């Protein structure tokens, strides 16, 4: 007797969460996420000794400004897509590579539930590492006196990170389930396609996730550097409702496509 879809997905989730958390990939994730925490410690150290970590036009940037820059440049533009690429594309690819896919597919569970269970485990795993790291960075960088005024922005930031992980994860889960070289495609999308079309005029930027995430960021964008200047010049910010609509639509569509791809694709394990 086949298990119902969500029951099966939950079983796969339980199994995959532990595997993901204690895999070699988590060491990579710890290094990537530990970087900003270390940076925040340095910023705090400089602050304790009366030095300024970041200056723009010779003027000191306050704690919330530094946090905003770290959120946008480190977390949303780098860490979230990178984690999604490495984890998302590996959801099915790892099982194929390790030749363990047969054990999952021969169970009496829908094939799509395998992917959904693993996808939920990826979200839990990354959120449990990234969000506490952001919390640590926030309390290290932002002076306590500013917490009351900036707390709503932190909540927005945490929600944005979670949303980014969900949407990027769904996209790369589909890439991993559908394409043969998912990692290469994922990296090209993250570091080639998105940064390029974001600075170009026209409608192409609507085929990125960063375009909609950027519209939801509560901090002012850093405006130094040629790329930022070009982005500012061609910036057409969609409204919050439009951004949320497209992000949710992208996330749901790619997850559905990924599930279909897993259900229909004939996986051939190399002997």
């Amino acid at each position, binding site marked *: 007797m086949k298990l119902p879809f969500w029951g099966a997905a939950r079983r796969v989730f339980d199994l995959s969460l532990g595997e993901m958390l204690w895999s070699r990939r988590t060491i990579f994730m710890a290094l990537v996420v530990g970087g900003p925490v270390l940076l925040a410690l340095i910023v705090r150290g400089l602050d304790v000794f009366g030095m300024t970590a970041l200056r723009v036009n010779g003027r000191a940037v*306050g704690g919330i400004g530094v946090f905003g820059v770290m959120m946008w440049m480190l977390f949303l533009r780098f860490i979230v897509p990178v984690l999604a690429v490495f984890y998302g594309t590996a959801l099915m690819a790892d099982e194929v590579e390790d030749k363990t896919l047969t054990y999952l597919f021969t169970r009496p569970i829908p094939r799509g539930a395998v992917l959904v269970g693993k996808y939920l485990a990826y979200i839990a795993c990354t959120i*449990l590492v990234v969000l506490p790291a952001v919390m640590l960075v926030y309390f290290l960088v932002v002076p306590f*006196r500013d917490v009351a005024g900036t707390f709503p922005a932190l909540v927005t930031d945490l929600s944005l990170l979670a949303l980014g992980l969900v949407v990027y994860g769904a996209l790369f889960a589909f890439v991993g389930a559908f394409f043969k070289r998912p990692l290469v495609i994922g990296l090209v999308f993250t570091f080639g396609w998105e940064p390029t079309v974001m600075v170009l005029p026209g409608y192409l930027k609507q085929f990125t996730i960063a375009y909609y995430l950027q519209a939801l960021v509560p901090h002012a964008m850093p405006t130094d550097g040629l790329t930022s200047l070009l982005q500012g010049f061609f910036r057409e910010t969609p409204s919050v409702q439009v951004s949320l609509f497209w992000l949710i639509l992208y996330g749901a569509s790619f997850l559905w496509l990924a599930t279909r791809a897993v259900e229909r694709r004939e996986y051939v394990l190399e002997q």
Partner: protein
Amino acid sequence: MTNKTRNFVLVSAAILTIGLGTGLVASYMGLPVSLLSSAAGPDDLKYVPQNAAVVAYANVRDVMNSDFRQRFRQLEPQSADRDEFEQKTGLDIERDIDSVVAAFFPNGESIAEHPERSAVVLARGRFEAGRLEALALEHGGTAEDYKGKRLLSHLEQGGTGDGMAVGFVEPDLVALGSLAAVKLAIDAGADNRNVMSNNDLMRLVAEMDSSNAWAVGRFDAIAREASLPSDLQAQLPTVTWFSAAGHINGGVSGVLKAEARDEAAAQNLRDMLRGFLAMARLQTGSRPGIQQMVDSIQLSGDGKTVALSFAVPSEFFDALEALARQKQGER
């Protein structure tokens, strides 16, 4: 789920819960700022009444020691009035005053008509309290104790107001203003009900850390209390908060910031300022010294914020100084 995984999940969830809980409590219940960090701005803010609409600060010592001040000091004429003031009070403003905090607070009266009743000035420095008290008594003033602080006041003969007063709130800090205003300042310090618990204002003060002169405040409160004609008030852009920060050293740099009521109002204000800047650039094209200053003005801002930053380099003042010397030589 293994024990190792469960522990990891619990630790992560605990960090998130503690962080969010702390933020929530700080945000909605107002944790005392002194709990984990020092308050923003100078300590003297504890004597500024909670309802202050504008707070301004100047680090007099920094400004007086700056190259900027030294440069213009040489051009100042000698003032006999200043010497007389120093002889009578024992106070050399340039040497004895370290910093000044000024605050305006709405009290239902027009700021334009009675500014002294809506303002208090806190000056930190070195004062000869005995000499000042003797001088006040000699000129018909009175001395009294109010909540353990020495208070000197002087009522104008036939005047309708409550006169001017000086309160020695700390050994090196005096409060100046009307008697009622000085008493309010002493109350604010004694009862701990001061501007430091005004989160909106302190948020702006916290951004001023590196400036040696600044002012922050509610624009609408000032416009209302200043008794501006209603037509003019209606024309004023819908600015709620403003801040001005300056750094004086060899040159002068500063940032003027305004927070509009909404993004549309901010965009209108940015457009208006952009127009003014373009006109100024056009007008000053033939005057290189002033053009350099106008070119340094940068308009920025995002969302509801509009910011105007400027930097006047020391070379600009070199040119002014040379011009002044040239005119003196001609005489």
